[in-house]
């Protein structure tokens, strides 16, 4: 809002690269200010846009003939305008942080559930297999003749 003293502004600029929370706080506050401005906006009187456009066209940088020639246009075609982005972080709304945390926790819960049911399934499979083996052995024992009776 332009209320910081020069010392405070300089201190903030020094600390910004080291503390991402500061940039995040600045971004959040900027977003809130813009939202407030949109909610409380009052349109200017009609004709203001045209006045601004006419005034901007009168600026020397705009009126300079070399800016209007084809040569300048072709020269500027290859000209690279460097727009320096000072931030190394992307900006998202703060509610995305909560959403990502919830999705992360949900994913972990689902993974734990999957592992639990998979292990249970494997155990059940092993129990079933051992029961089948036991049944086969029992059947074989019933079908095979008694060797002692045959010898007598």
């Amino acid at each position, binding site marked *: 809002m332009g209320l910081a003293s020069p010392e405070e502004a300089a201190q903030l600029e020094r600390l910004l690269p080291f503390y991402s929370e500061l940039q995040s706080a600045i971004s959040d506050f900027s977003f809130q200010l813009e939202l407030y401005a949109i909610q409380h906006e009052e349109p*200017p009187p009609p004709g203001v846009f045209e006045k601004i456009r006419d005034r901007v066209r009168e600026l020397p940088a705009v009126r300079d003939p070399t800016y209007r020639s084809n040569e300048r246009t072709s020269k500027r075609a290859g000209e690279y305008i460097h727009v320096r*982005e000072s931030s190394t972080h992307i900006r998202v709304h703060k509610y995305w942080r909560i959403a990502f945390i919830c999705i992360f926790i949900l994913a972990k819960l689902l993974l734990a559930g999957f592992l639990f049911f998979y292990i249970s399934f494997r155990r059940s499979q092993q129990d079933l297999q051992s029961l089948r083996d036991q049944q086969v052995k029992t059947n074989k024992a019933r079908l095979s003749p008694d060797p002692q009776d045959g010898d007598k």
Partner: protein
Amino acid sequence: MLFSYIQQFVPSRIEAENLLVSIFSRLASRLEAAFASSLSIYCWLQIEARKMILEQRGQQGSTVYPKESAEVKTYYSSLLEEASSEHQWVFREIFLNGRQREELAQQAGKDQAYIGDLLRECMLIIRKKLG
């Protein structure tokens, strides 16, 4: 958006309109600085607009905004409705009238750090209300 912002300094619509045209024409050639700033474009516009308005007011030697009008709730000042009268006074004098902290400290008979603390508290209240 910027028109409403300007009107908190200059209630007259005609004067606010002239200021808006003047501000945009002066800032048009300085937009590269806006991109280099760590602030959003609109916040940068607000800060620069305020500087120009206060500068013009200083050149005219007048304070268009009424000094003692605590009952007028406009724009950001309305976010400090529930704050103490001292907080509202500090914010109004510094933000709207462009007075320095030293001047207010002298007037209030306190030190500059006290005024700084009050201003910081105002910002916290505004930030909380906006959030």
